């Protein structure tokens, strides 16, 4: 579970980034990197691709931060929405490229070089991740953000609601629909 990102943090960081303060950019990265990483990982199902795309998101931030207009009414939400939008675009590009030039990721060898888990466990994890990411792609963007925020990043309903600019009731409804769709897609039944 990550600490909530406050409006105060964002309000001081974004203008510093726009002035070209590299320290501010790194602080912004530290704040959002894990969230973006989980989002990208959930959508690609590949850890290496998720790392690369997360880095790319923040490189785009450096390039375009001077065009970004901070919503002073809800600063952290506007920054989050901007970052997730960049990430979503990059993921879409990634999937498009994969469809055009299908390739086998060298990541498939990764489980066998890991020290922490035995190969069977790693293979199982990898398979689960692939199944989840495939099913998550079928959700709407709001449902995906709710699910990833809640279960990937351990955010509370209030945090997700603030991120999406929705009420907590709406987040609960989105969560319910998303889980129901995923159960149907993955054929999950109570154990």
């Amino acid at each position, binding site marked *: 579970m990550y600490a909530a990102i406050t409006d105060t943090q964002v309000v001081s960081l974004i203008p510093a980034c726009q002035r*070209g303060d590299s320290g501010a950019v790194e602080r912004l990265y530290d704040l959002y990197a894990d969230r973006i990483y*989980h989002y990208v990982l959930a959508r690609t199902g590949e850890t290496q691709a998720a790392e690369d795309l997360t880095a790319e998101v923040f490189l785009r931030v450096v390039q375009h931060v001077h065009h970004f207009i901070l919503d002073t009414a809800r600063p952290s939400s506007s920054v989050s929405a901007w970052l997730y939008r960049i990430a979503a675009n990059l993921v879409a590009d990634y999937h498009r490229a994969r469809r055009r030039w299908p390739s086998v990721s060298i990541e498939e060898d990764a489980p066998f070089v890991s020290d922490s888990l035995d190969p069977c466990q790693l293979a199982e994890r990898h398979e*689960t991740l692939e199944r989840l990411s495939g099913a998550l792609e079928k959700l709407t963007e709001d449902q995906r953000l709710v699910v990833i925020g809640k279960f990937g990043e351990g955010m509370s309903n209030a945090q997700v609601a603030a991120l999406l600019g929705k009420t907590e009731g709406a987040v*609960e409804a989105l969560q319910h629909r998303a*889980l129901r769709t995923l159960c149907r897609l993955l054929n*999950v039944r109570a*154990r």
Partner: protein
Amino acid sequence: MNDDELSSILGRCLDQIAAGETASACLVGYPEHAAELASLLAMACELGTLGSYRLSEAARQRTRTRLRQAEAARRDRRTAPWWRSGSLVVPRAAAGLAAALFCVILTAGLVAASQPGDLAYGVRVVVERAPALLAAGAAGRARAELGIASRRLADLDRTMSSQQQALDGRAVSALLASAETAAEIAAGLPEEERGEIAALLAEQANALAQLGRAARQPKDAEALLLASERAHRDAERASRGVPTLDPQPAGPHHGPAASATAGPHGSPAPERTSSTRPRATETASPTPTHAMPSPTRATPDGAGRRPTTPQSPHTATPERRRPAATPNGASPAATSSGAGPSATSPGPGPSATPPDPGPSATSSGPGPNAASPGPGQGATSPGPGGQGH
């Protein structure tokens, strides 16, 4: 129970699990939804595996380094001059500007060098009217129009001398339009200036007549002679200070330009039916008794046959047939050879009242004849080719 309630129950169960309770313990409170809730909670637990993935520290370090480099590069770009900044905006803009300039120069060159018969000639004709629109004062504008008419005359001269090209209707239209405008403007000028302009118009009319006589194609000859006749009428108007000779303004299809010029590119293609008269005859002055001897144009074969007005598709109707002679029977009498316009014979005729364009004032010349089949009888407008002023 509706979806909203189930959503709330699911939310409560998830909160309880997050607080450390087991799924089974949560389901005890909602036995009627236990089955559905169980699968939803199982799905939620499976999704929890996403949270077990962490961005590696190596990846974080790599990204931080790349961010620092990107930020430094951006700072350099902002402070460096554009040619070193790597930005393509200025070079692209410059290239676009250069390309646009090249296109403009090329187009201007093509237009300026265009000759009658060329595609761009129509543009040249329009563009060259600019000085007339910008000229200061009525006299200046009249002279500018005359200058334009001279250019068109020179174009026609070149075309006819080359013997290879057909007559371009646009040149004739533009010439007549300029001559008519000059005559209209001249009508409001003092007599001395009017006389000068009328003399120049007459010169142009004579030049047109000469070109017509020298033309090889009979239809070209006819068109030029008709245009000459019209120019003589304009000269006459200028000399007398009459803004218009025709009390009934003609529509765009009635003017001599329309009938003397078949199309924008082609040479005029008059229908050589001696008995068929154009609308011009019908819109002629209602004072046929003022008719002067109508000029009989010398045709290239020297037969002295009166040229018929070229008919546009809009004006050629079978019922508009003209009697063989004008009411006073004078029409076929005069010839135009060597005859000047009214500027050279300004003596007023018996019925030379200013608003009446009766041609008696020019009875000694081949000037406009209200009752004659002259091409401009019904037209104060130069036709489609000369509407631009």
